[in-house]
């Protein structure tokens, strides 16, 4: 893209992009650490994960403030406006990813004393890996402004939804086997829901990137290639 005639305008957009990249890094690490803490019963790691959240909140505010200031000063149009609106939307998705990862870390701390069926976290870990990969891919797509790669993330979310279905069935089985598992498995069910929501935020970001790059929205309905929903 050709530079703006006003150089400071480019610098402002670049600074917003850097903050989004930083937020992406924090959110990604929070998810990976929370899942690691959950499956390895690591309380200190879970606590460190919680401590990252305020940073993400602060960065989101900074992105919003910088975006609003740039809109007020430059009256951006076309690609520049999409860039700024995209940054606001992405920052809010990443902030939510952080909240959901934080919630997983909190639940990890709660259930560690009560970890009755360690094998119950296996499917969940698989889901977490997939969500982390989706998040990484979508952040790479954001950095490269790559609409095709973003669209691939958007399509792949169906896999997380399918896994959630399978994790749900597993947890029900464990609960039926022994009612003393119910508290533990219910926490894990919430964790699986959190991961599924993180996947949704990754697809939101993918949609934002597609719009930002092409100016066109992806369809409202994703192609349903897999049996995905638990109703």
């Amino acid at each position, binding site marked *: *893209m050709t530079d703006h005639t*006003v150089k400071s305008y480019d610098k402002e957009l670049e600074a917003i992009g850097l903050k989004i990249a930083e937020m992406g890094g924090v959110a990604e690490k929070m998810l990976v650490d929370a899942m690691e803490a959950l499956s390895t019963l690591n309380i200190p790691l879970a606590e460190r994960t919680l401590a990252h959240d305020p940073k993400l909140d602060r960065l989101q505010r900074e992105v919003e403030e910088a975006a609003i200031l740039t809109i007020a000063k430059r*009256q951006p*149009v076309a690609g520049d406006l*999409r860039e700024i609106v995209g940054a606001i939307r992405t920052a809010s998705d990443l902030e939510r990813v952080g909240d959901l990862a934080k919630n997983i870390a909190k639940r990890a701390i709660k259930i560690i004393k009560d970890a009755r069926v360690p094998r119950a976290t296996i499917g969940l870990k698989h889901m977490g890996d997939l969500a982390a990969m989706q998040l990484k891919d979508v952040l790479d797509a954001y950095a*490269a402004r*790559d*609409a095709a790669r973003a669209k691939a993330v958007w399509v792949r979310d169906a896999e997380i939804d399918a896994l959630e279905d399978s994790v749900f069935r597993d947890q029900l089985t464990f609960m039926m086997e022994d009612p003393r598992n119910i508290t533990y498995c219910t926490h894990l069910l919430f964790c699986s829901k959190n991961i599924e929501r993180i996947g949704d935020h990754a697809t939101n970001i993918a949609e934002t990137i597609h719009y930002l*790059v*092409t100016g066109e929205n992806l369809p409202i309905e994703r192609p349903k290639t897999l049996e995905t929903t638990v109703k």
Partner: protein
Amino acid sequence: MTMEAATATLTAGNDRPVHSAPQGPIKIQARDVNVYYGDKHAIKHLDVDIPQHSVMAFIGPSGCGKSTFLRCINRMNDTIPICRVTGKIEIDRRDIYDPSLDVVQLRAHIGMVFQKPNPFPKSIYDNVAYGPKIHGLARTKSEIDAIVESSLRKAGLWEEVKDRLAESGTGLSGGQQQRLCIARAIAVSPDVILMDEPCSALDPIATAKVEELIDELKSNYTIIIVTHSMQQAARVSQRTAFFHLGTLVEEGPTDVIFSTPKDKRTNDYITGRFG
């Protein structure tokens, strides 16, 4: 896709201009219009359809030909000896360069507002009454009074000047003078109003009043506005045409031009990346 690859999907270079057909009846139609000032080819093979009762904005860097084309529409370029126009411009399907056409009659149907307010050094009343008088649109004093009042009302100026109609038009503020010029333009009941940067000499409040007026006038008139303010084009117009180096590069609904322009030159211009 990288940023470069993304912008490469915009048509680059000297492709055919981007057009999308307007809805509704066409008021002005230009086909293969060329304008030369001596050897200089100022407008090149321009095609455009301008819909009735709407606002069309012409944007582009200085010297791109937008004002030149605007002045073709009321044949103001006729007054420049070295200027030559080829191609066809029709208003209501009538060729305005037809030699049998009465240019004075044509201009009576096309009002024009300029960059600098240029009221006649006469009273406010006479500024508005002059056109209808010379075109014989009114015979009696009361008919002229009615035209003066309704034109000043349409221009949003009546309440501010009704008690001092005999004062000189040049004594008004810049924004009021410009609205007086608009009242003068609409006093002869034109179909088309051409505006060449009508707000560039006005403060933001006067600009807002003129923009509000443009919005009201569009239900009865076909308005073409040349502006250097991108925000103004985005605010007041339904369609926008981008000119560059004498070529109409891209033309379409204003919301498309300012959100997802198809041509890279349009994108670079509206986002401030030109030159």
